[in-house]
């Protein structure tokens, strides 16, 4: 890694604000091995192992030859310290939160004119058909609880609201659960109208519940920044918690939510929701009445561990997407002969601009390079996570390709979802820079808007 990168301000940012998912994935396998401090520390792991390295350094400095057992012990202790004590990738988690909430909200607004045909009372996939399928696959949706048009309209509006609130990071812990309920409800009710974009939103909505995705770039973070005194008297939070407990109890009493799941591991949604609700209550209680106590610290550490595991799952999920897409392509004869990308561009369902598809499809060299490049990038991506610079180049290439897919194949929302998924692996410095750009643009756009309003 270049000296300018390690020595510059970016390093401090990355190391101080959390390593990011790139550190997470590249770093965890290295945790088991003793940190090599006699060599310049690799950039990808710099942020993650800042703790362990700092712990190990004095020991190594004092005794040049350290027993292997001691080094392993130091590494394990350091790893445990990081795992329990550091929220890894807070900016990456916030990016996933904002990105997928935006994708889902845009999708809902785009489909607003068609909402009743796609998800509601006018759907050809009527509730009777949906119920027959759901009886077999046991997927969760609140939309089958009532046939009323107004129940559907209320759930749809609630979904838009959950998306907006999650984007803003208002009571993120509760909102992320509501967002998950909204996503699962709409998608599982009409499972046959989604595509890959809906699939990744579905998965991420569940994973997000287990992350501390509101640590930065959220209304919650801003409220916490105003001072610790306010956290203790969170009237809105208490009311929200009580209301959600009441709704959940009503659903449970009406027999809509089960304790037991239908198949292995027999985990019902009732257990999931009540556990989340109870933990939220316990967290409030320890913060309110025993802020300095050890139980609060234990809960904090458990939440951090859960976050770190969930962020790992998110990262691995993205890797699985690209690995699967890449490895199965290797076997395809059209990918081998370098004409594969010519065909999707000539499918009527994915050709909103036939002239554009026609122009791109005239060059054998271009189609060959794009086809081979796609497979190469998708197959190589997981392995480039070991090298920060290479990984960032590949990320840029993949994001550009998805921008192309958005326009050429007419899949803008799918592409935005995939770009958001890619962003999990962006370095913190890049995310912070992008956020700054967005903020500046917003400020620049606000002045004329205010003038217009006046």
């Amino acid at each position, binding site marked *: 890694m270049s000296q300018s990168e390690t020595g510059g301000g970016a390093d401090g940012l990355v190391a101080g604000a959390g390593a990011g998912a790139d550190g997470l994935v590249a770093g965890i396998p290295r945790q088991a091995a003793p940190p090599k401090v006699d060599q310049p520390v690799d950039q990808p792991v710099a942020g993650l192992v*800042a*703790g362990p390295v700092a712990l190990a350094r004095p020991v190594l400095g004092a005794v040049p030859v350290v027993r292997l057992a001691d080094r392993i012990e130091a590494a394990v202790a350091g790893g*445990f310290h990081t795992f*329990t*004590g*550091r929220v890894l990738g807070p900016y990456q988690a916030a990016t996933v939160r904002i990105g997928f909430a935006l994708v889902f909200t845009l999708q809902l607004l*785009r*489909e607003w004119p*068609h909402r009743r045909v*796609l998800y509601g009372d*006018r*759907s*050809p*996939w*009527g*509730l009777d*058909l949906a119920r*027959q399928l759901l009886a*077999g696959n*046991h997927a969760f949706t609140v939309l089958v609880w009532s046939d009323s048009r107004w129940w559907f309209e209320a759930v749809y509006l609630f979904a838009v609201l959950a998306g907006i609130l999650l984007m803003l990071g*208002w009571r993120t812990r*509760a909102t992320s659960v509501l967002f998950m309920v909204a996503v699962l409800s709409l998608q599982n009710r009409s499972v*046959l*109208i989604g595509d890959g974009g809906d*699939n990744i939103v579905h*998965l991420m909505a*569940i994973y997000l519940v287990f992350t501390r995705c*509101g*640590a930065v770039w959220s209304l*919650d*973070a801003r409220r*916490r920044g105003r001072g610790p005194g306010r956290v203790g008297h969170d009237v809105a939070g208490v009311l929200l918690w009580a209301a*959600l407990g009441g709704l959940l109890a009503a659903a449970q009493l009406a027999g809509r939510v089960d304790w037991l799941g239908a*198949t*292995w591991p027999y985990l019902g949604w009732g257990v999931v929701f009540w556990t989340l609700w109870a933990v939220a209550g316990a967290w409030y209680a320890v*913060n309110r009445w025993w802020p300095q106590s050890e139980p609060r*610290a*234990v809960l*904090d550490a*458990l*939440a*951090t*561990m859960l976050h770190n595991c969930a962020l790992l*799952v998110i990262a691995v*999920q993205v890797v699985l997407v690209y690995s699967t*897409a890449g490895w199965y392509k290797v*076997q395809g*004869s*059209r*990918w081998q002969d370098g*004409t*594969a*990308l010519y065909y*999707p561009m000539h*499918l009527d369902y994915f*050709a909103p*601009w036939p002239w554009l598809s026609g122009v791109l499809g*005239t060059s*054998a060299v271009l189609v060959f390079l794009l086809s081979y490049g796609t497979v190469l990038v998708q197959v190589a991506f997981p392995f480039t996570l070991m090298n920060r610079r290479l990984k960032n180049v590949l990320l840029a290439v993949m994001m550009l390709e998805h921008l192309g897919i958005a326009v050429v194949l*007419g899949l803008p929302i799918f592409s935005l979802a995939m770009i958001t998924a890619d962003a999990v692996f962006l370095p913190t410095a890049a995310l912070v820079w992008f956020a700054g750009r967005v903020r500046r643009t917003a400020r620049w756009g606000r002045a004329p808007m205010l003038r217009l309003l006046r």
Partner: protein
Amino acid sequence: MTDGDGAGTGDGTGGGGGSAPRVWSRPALAVLVAGAVGLVTCTAGFLGALFLHVAPPNTLYQRYQKQVDGVVYPEFEQNWKLFAPDPLQQNVTVDARVRTAAGTGGWIGLTAQDIAAIRGNPIPSHLDQNLLRRAWDFYDSTHSNQDDSATAPNGGLAQEYLKRIALQRIGRAAGGDPVTAIQFRSGTREVAPPPWSRESWSTQIQYRELGWWPVTDQDYRGLR
């Protein structure tokens, strides 16, 4: 309580960055170690199940099929064989025609309506891009293409769904007479080889006609 909790508040309880590790009491340490072991085990198990779900059929999946399917279905199902192993190389169209007391009407291009709505649209709707396309895939994958008999338990659902999609677009009446029956056909046309390709194949459209299905008022329930 319902917010993003205290991550990053820097109150030192959990230790942030390079701060000294907290000294835990024995019970607290026991809870943390148990929590850590449990979480790591669950995470590893979950990721293992996801991997076996997306991997090609293999012996490990066969051995743990119940557990893997239990974890993955219904909420973590995924298919990332995007354009793989080979992209689709044919345009499939679905047409329908209806019978009334006055006789049989002409073929109505349902897919053609979708394509017309997608052309020149920067943000195509799921209504145009996915609804009929995936409904036909569903029907096709649950029925024999020899005699149109259902080959999967959900075959009946697929047929009813396809029928209702067409009826929603066509309406209750054709030429003033109520619709009594409907028939579908699918047309398959290979995408022409690229101009530089030495391969060549027919791009004639191949039709497959399904039988006539009776239409009743019940089929229109909920449709406008």
